Every structure is written in structure tokens, then in C-alpha cells.
């Protein structure tokens, strides 16, 4: 690694893990494996297939061609029949991290509390833990149109540097300068309906191998979220949905009359603020989150909600304390 490269890496590390001692804490964590799943290569995760681990699975009668070393001779002595001992295989686990790069993610929140930055930091932490655990990690960015910047499957502890540098590149690449807010947005400029399933249409962008899929998104799609989750589950994915919202979205501090421009559809709506309207809005937001939670829970999908106005370690610790997605080794 050149000096320049190491400097870049340091900067990337600073961007993605700005909290002191955070990496050390992540080292002590492991991602929850969930049920036995089939992998491809040998790994540390118990597989659903039988293999050569030390974990006994079952006996079966010897048939011609079996390795005679695996005959349980003690059993043969007692029963005079040849049985073969079978063991569970240990394979690697694939983690697929999908980060929502739609404009609603990238353009909301200033500086440290940007939704997009929070989502990438979250993904980096999860990816880091996965790679440290000898699992495979793939990271993809997606928006309402396409899945892009798909990283090939990373494996091994060294791959974390690749992951970090690629994610830090994504930070600047996808974020939109806030000056872009202008009067160019006119009412009903675009009538496109944001569809979460659209970029995954055809299935080529979906994970091919069974594993765990983490989705980092604000869930602000008008449709397609449930079909996306269904198709992920159909690909034998255990899904964790990390729902990221900004503090301003949860409880806006607004007064007066506003012309709200939907950052994705460019449609404008005029709202005159009042305490009553704010109350109604808050109710609407909590209903929206509840709907998402129910959508996930009804499918056995993990749902975790994050307020990106809070510090990332705090949110991560809450995730940890829930115990179902990540745990200490």
C-alpha cells in the first residue's frame, strides 16, 4: 500500500468510523448467524449441509463407495452392521448489505447527521463485523431506478480495506449539495412513482446465494417494498431492515407557510404550519413506521428503527441490546 493510499485509507476510516475506540468495540462483536444456511466455501458458520465439522449430525447405513474411515466401529462391534457417522458441515455465511442511495437519503440532514452518511457508517460497521467474522460481504447501493456500485463478494479480514475505501468513495459521490434546492422544482413536475422493487426487477441484482440481507433505507417508497422483501426471502435471505429517519422528519420544527418539494418526485405541496398540522404529521410518521414494522414482522424480518440525529454508536448499541441481529462473541 502506497503512502498516498494509506493516507486515503486513514481519511476513509475517519469518515466511516469517526468514533474513538469504535473499531475495537466492533471487533468484539459478531453478527448473528440465524438458522443453518448453505454456503459455498468452508467457513465458520454451521451449514445446513453435512460435511466435515466436529459437530455430529446422524448415522446412516454404509453403502458401497463410502469412506470406510468414517464407519463407526464401536457400533459395528455392537450391532454387526456397518454405519457411517455423519457430521454437519461448516461453511461461510454471505452478508448482503443494500444501502438506499435515493435522494431522500442523500439530501436530508446536514453534516454528521446526514441520513446517507449514517446509513453508510451503519453498513460499514455491519460489514466490518461480518468480515472480521470470516463471512462474505457484498455491498450494493440502490435507488428507485437502479442498483449500482455493487461490490463483488468480499471475503477475509483484508477485504475490509477494500470495503472501507469503496464506501468512503460513495459518501461524496452520491451526496447532493444542498444548494441544489432551488425554484426549479415546480408543482407536479414529475409524476413518477417511486418503486422499491423496480431496480431489482429481473432478479439479477438480488443475492444468488442464501445468506443474510441488511437493508439500510428510509423506506420512503410509494410501493414495491413488500415485493422486494418477498423476493429477498424467496432467495433464502434472512432480512434485516434498518429504517433510518432524520430528527427533522420525525418532529419538524416549522412555522409559517411552506411549499414542500418532494426531493424525489419534485412535486410541490403548500402547507400552512400550525401546531395542529405538526401533530397530525407526527401521527402520520408514527403510523408509517408502524406500517413498515408490521410489514417486516409479518414476514419474520428484523426491523430496526434509527434516528440519524442521534450518535451512531448509541443506535448500534440499541441494535446490539436487542440481541437478535448482532451479539458479542
Amino acid at each position: 500500500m502506497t503512502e498516498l493510499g494509506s493516507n486515503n485509507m486513514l481519511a476513509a476510516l475517519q469518515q466511516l468510523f469517526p468514533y474513538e475506540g469504535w473499531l475495537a468495540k466492533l471487533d468484539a462483536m459478531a453478527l448473528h448467524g440465524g438458522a443453518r444456511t448453505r454456503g459455498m466455501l468452508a467457513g465458520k458458520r454451521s451449514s445446513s449441509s453435512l460435511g466435515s465439522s466436529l459437530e455430529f449430525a446422524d448415522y446412516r447405513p454404509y453403502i458401497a463407495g463410502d469412506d470406510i474411515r468414517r464407519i463407526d466401529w464401536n457400533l459395528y462391534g455392537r450391532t454387526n452392521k456397518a454405519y457411517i457417522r455423519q457430521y454437519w458441515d461448516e461453511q461461510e455465511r454471505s452478508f448482503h448489505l443494500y444501502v438506499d442511495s435515493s435522494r431522500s437519503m442523500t439530501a436530508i440532514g446536514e453534516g454528521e447527521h446526514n441520513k446517507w452518511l449514517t446509513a453508510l457508517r451503519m453498513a460499514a460497521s455491519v460489514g466490518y463485523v461480518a468480515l472480521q467474522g470470516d463471512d462474505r460481504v457484498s455491498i450494493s447501493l440502490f435507488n428507485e431506478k437502479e442498483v449500482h456500485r455493487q461490490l463483488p463478494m468480499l471475503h477475509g479480514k483484508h477485504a475490509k480495506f477494500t470495503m472501507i475505501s469503496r464506501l468512503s468513495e460513495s459518501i461524496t459521490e452520491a451526496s447532493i449539495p444542498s444548494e441544489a434546492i432551488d425554484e426549479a422544482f415546480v408543482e407536479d413536475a414529475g409524476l413518477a412513482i417511486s418503486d422499491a422493487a423496480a431496480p431489482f426487477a429481473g432478479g439479477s441484482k438480488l443475492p444468488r446465494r442464501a445468506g443474510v440481507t441488511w437493508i439500510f433505507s428510509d423506506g420512503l417508497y410509494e410501493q414495491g417494498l413488500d415485493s422486494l422483501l418477498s423476493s429477498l426471502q424467496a432467495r433464502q435471505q434472512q432480512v434485516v431492515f434498518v429504517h433510518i429517519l432524520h430528527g427533522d422528519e420525525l418532529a419538524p420544527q416549522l412555522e409559517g407557510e411552506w411549499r414542500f418539494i418532494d426531493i424525489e418526485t419534485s412535486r410541490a405541496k403548500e402547507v400552512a404550519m400550525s401546531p395542529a398540522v405538526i401533530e397530525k404529521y407526527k401521527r402520520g410518521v408514527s403510523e408509517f413506521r408502524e406500517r413498515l414494522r408490521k410489514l417486516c414482522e409479518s414476514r419474520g424480518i428484523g426491523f430496526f428503527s434509527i434516528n440519524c440525529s442521534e450518535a451512531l454508536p448509541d443506535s448500534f448499541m440499541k441494535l446490539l441490546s436487542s440481541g437478535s441481529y448482532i451479539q458479542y462473541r
Partner: protein
Amino acid sequence: MHWLSLTSAWFGLAALLIIAMYILKKRYEPKRISSHLLWRQVLQEQEANRPWQRLKQQLLLWLQLMILLLIVIALMEPAVERKLAEDTHAVILLDRSASMATSIDTDGKTYLDTAKHELISWLDKEWGGGEVTLIVNGEYPQILANQSNQKQELVRIIEDIDPYYGTTDDETALSLARALASSSEQSMIHYFVDERYNINQEIIQAEENSLEVWHMYASPAAAEDERIRSFTLSQEERAVHGFATVMHAPQEQRELELTVTAYNEQGRKLSDKSYKQSAAASGVTTFQMYDLPQGHYYMARLTPHDQDPNPYNNKQYGLIAEERIYEALLISDGNLFLEKALQLMNVGVTKLAPTSAVPSQELLSTVHFIITDGSYEKLTKDNAWKDVLDRFPLWIVDHPAADQQAKLVHAETVVNEHEVTQYFTMDDIFISSIRELSAEELAPHDVLVQYGGAAAILAGTHNQKPLLRYTFALQDSDLPLRAVFPLLVMNSVDYLVSGSSKQLGSMLANAIPTLSMSADTSASYWHRLDEEPSDEKISETEVEDGYVTAPSVPGVYSLIELNEKGDTVQQRTAVITADATEFATASIAELISGSSNAEEPNDQIEGTGMSKLTAWLAACLMLLLLLEWEVYRRGI
């Protein structure tokens, strides 16, 4: 509903300003949000009732427009007519001036009689039984009945009202009526006046919201009124000459007939003589009559034409002006103008320097009046001189020092009617400096001539003796060079010696004349000579009681002075006249009909009055402001 100030409606244009401000108002501020998904519920609700939303958005505008509307309406001063309760306090002002008492309406009754009759019939028919206050004018307004509701008594008082021929103070009477009306909660004022009621427009309009009913007595023929303005007589040796001025409608093609009758001392008619002359186009015709028969007093009568609304003023009495030689004491450093003019008037002048001592009693006994030319202040400081000055009619001519001069704002001259200013005009006369008099010095005297805003000639009395004051030195003016100067001096001398002659001349009814009583007189009374001579003693006065007042009814009278024993000491004849200004052509009828809230003249309307709605509007306004605040606070 009435609008008292319609022009204020222009303020309504301010609505355009408010609307413009709403048009120019800052639009919705743009803000980018992640998605409308989160706002869906709010937006759906807002869109569901969009018309209401739109209305609500403009609610403040509507409220502001309504507030503006209310303010404009309030500025327009709306008022509603209200019926007056029956127990309204009625203030009645009855004009009893000479014009009311002498003008005759078509029935041949005087205005005053008609007014009394109508007032009594108002009490009979329209009066609700409330309190009635009755005021009549005069030198001072008089309250004849104060808040009385005794009808019999009121009728009696009304029937007993006598005309007042002197100078009436009409403005004060009007003010008193209004003051009395405003002191009670519900009140109305009835004015029974004629068109010569002497008030100006500002005073009529001063009280905007009071209920006033004008019962106006006027005749369209008022302009046709013919009258004798002046009638003077003079005697040259044994011949008596007369001079009369007749006022009539201008452009009148008519022959005027003037009859002069001579009477003796007992009021018996001696003889009469008629003069005919065609009317002059200017409206003023003068009769010069030579060789009138001898008599004690004379009466000039103008034969009235058919439509003359006031035959009373077609008659005037006159006394022969006596040719007498007067002696004047002139205290002066020398005043050639005055000396010459006095000599021209046959006035003997005894000159004294201001520094000289008080003259002897012998000299003073021959003097009729004293002239102080620039030395009045100095002389009054000397007690001996002051005593002398107090005993004589006084003619003061001031020589204003530099620090005493009044500021002359313009060179305009105002000449007020007075016997001193008779036949006198002051056009184009220049006075370079006039002494400024204090209010105390001015108050007891009449200002006859005003020059440049300052009083130039004043007349009055001191110790019931005539006093005349010129506030300018004759040398400071071109007046002595004018043709009118001898006339002014003659009038001045006549004024100063009035009351000292055998005849008292003419005086105003009810006036306090300038008189010099005989030293022995202890009591006096008036004795009427004209019409029905009788032995009735009118207004007997003890000398100690104070002033002798002129009789209240015009005519020819003798003032008879009695000594302590009751013997007649002196008997002098006086012509008592009514106030001539009462007959001048002046009409307030137009002023009153032009006034916004006055009723039609002679149109007796049972009271309706204006009640302003401003208080209600203010209450509405406060409610609206409260509503606006609520709208603003809630943000709905």
C-alpha cells in the same frame, strides 16, 4: 340611516392598499423534504377541503377588509333617527326684537303675535307634557320659565311677553338655549325667530347633533321694505329745514311720498306738509325739505306701499338740532387742525398748556367739554386735574409714544355705526401710528373706527358723561386734510355735548343715555308726548338710584326732572328709537336651510333626532380585532 360625513368614504380606497399588500405578500417558502409520503395524511386532509383551505388562507385578509370597512363607516359618522320621548325637555327661544314686533305678516298681525300664538298652540297640541324652558332675547337673554310644566302658567307668561326695541344680544340667547338643552339628557330646541335674527353661520352649525326646530318668520317681500333711515332737522333763524333718507328696493320705479308733521310741546299736531319724489335707482332717496312749519318735534311718515312688510319703520320722529355756542377747554401744546375745525363749528376754544395749573372755577363754569390733546395720562396723575376731568365730557386725543404703538397689520378701516360716525367714511385715510389700548381700557367703550386691526376712535361714557377717545395724534394722519374731518369733528362735538342741551336728541330704547342732570334734580320720570299724551309717569328714577334708562317703547318723550320739593326743574324732549339694525336687510333663512340638520323653516316637525352609531361600530371593531388575533394565534 344618515351619513354625517359622506366624504370620508374616500378612505375606503385603503382597501386597495390592503389587497395589494396581500398580492405582493411573500409566497410560500420552498423547502425540500424527503418525501410527501410522510406528509400524506396532512396533505390529504388539506386537499380534501381545499376551498375551505383557500378561504382560510385569506381569512386574515377578509378580517382586515371588514375592519377597514368598519373604520370607514365610523368615519362617515352614521346616525339613525330616533323618536324623542314625550317627556323631552323643550327649550324655546322666542325672538322679541323690534323686527319681530313690527313686521307684519299677511294676516296683519305682527310676527311676535303670530309666534306667541303658534307657541301657545304648540303647547296645546304637540307638547308632550315635558319640561319647558322659555327664553327671550334682549340686552341680555332672559329665562322667563325654567323647566316648568305648568301649562297655564306658561301660557300666561307667553301672553305677557313684551317686545324689546333696544339692541338684542341674539348670539348669547342662542348659546344659552343650547347650553340649557345640553344640560338635560333628552332635549329639543324650538327657535321662534324672524329672518333678521342676528347670528352667523358658524354659530348655527356649531351644534351639530342637537335637535333644533326653526320656526322662521320671514316674508318674501322683506327686500321691498321701505324705511326712513334718518330724519334730521335744523333751524336757521326762524326757518326750519328737514333732511330725510329713505331706504327702499333699488330699481324701483315709484314715487315716494313723505309727510312731515309738526307737533307742539304737549304732543298736539300743529300742521303737516307732504313731499313727493321719485325713487332713486340706488335704493336710497334723500328728501330735502325747506321751510317746515314751526314745532316742538316733528314726525316724518313715508306713505307705505301695499306690500310693505313693516309699515312701522316708515315713521320717524325728529327734533330740531339746536344752534348753540359751546365752549371747549383744549389742553394742548397746540393743535391747529383741531382749533380751526372747532372754530368752524362755532365752538369757543380756551387753550391751556398741559403744564398749567387747574383753571379757575369761573372759567370752568363756562366750559361744556374738555379736550386733552396728548396730555391725558399726565393730567390724571394730578388729583386736582382729575377731579376737573371727571366732571366734564371728555375728548381724549392720544399721542402714542414709540413703545405704546399698536402693530398695524393692514391699512383697512372698519367703521361701526354710531352717531359720531354718521355720514362718515374713512376710505383711503392713512394713520401712521395708533396707540395700543389694554383690554381694560377698551372694554367699557364702543369701538367706532378700527384701523389696521387697532381701535382708532372709541366712544363711551365716564360718570354718565360722554367720552370720546382718538387713539392717534391728528398730526400722524391725513384725516385733517380730508373733507370728512369737519363732519367728524361736528359729530364728535354733538356727541360730547349731548345731554347738556335742552333737547336730549334721539336715543335707543332701553339704552342708558348720556345725560347731564341739573344740580337740583333728585328724581326724574319720562312722559310720553306722541300718539296718546297722558300723565303717566314712565320709569321714575331717583337720582341716587343710579342711571336713567330710556323708555322701552319708541316714541317721543319728555324727561322731567324734579327737585326734592317735587317741582319741575327741567323738562327735555327725547326721541326714543328702535334698534335700526333690526330693520337692515339680512336673512338667516338660507343659512339655516343650508345647515345640515335643521328642519325646514316654519315647518313644525315633531321631534326626530340623530343618534350616532359610532359606539356600536367601535364595539364591532374590537370584536373583529379579537377574532383576527384568534385566527392569527391559532394559525387556522
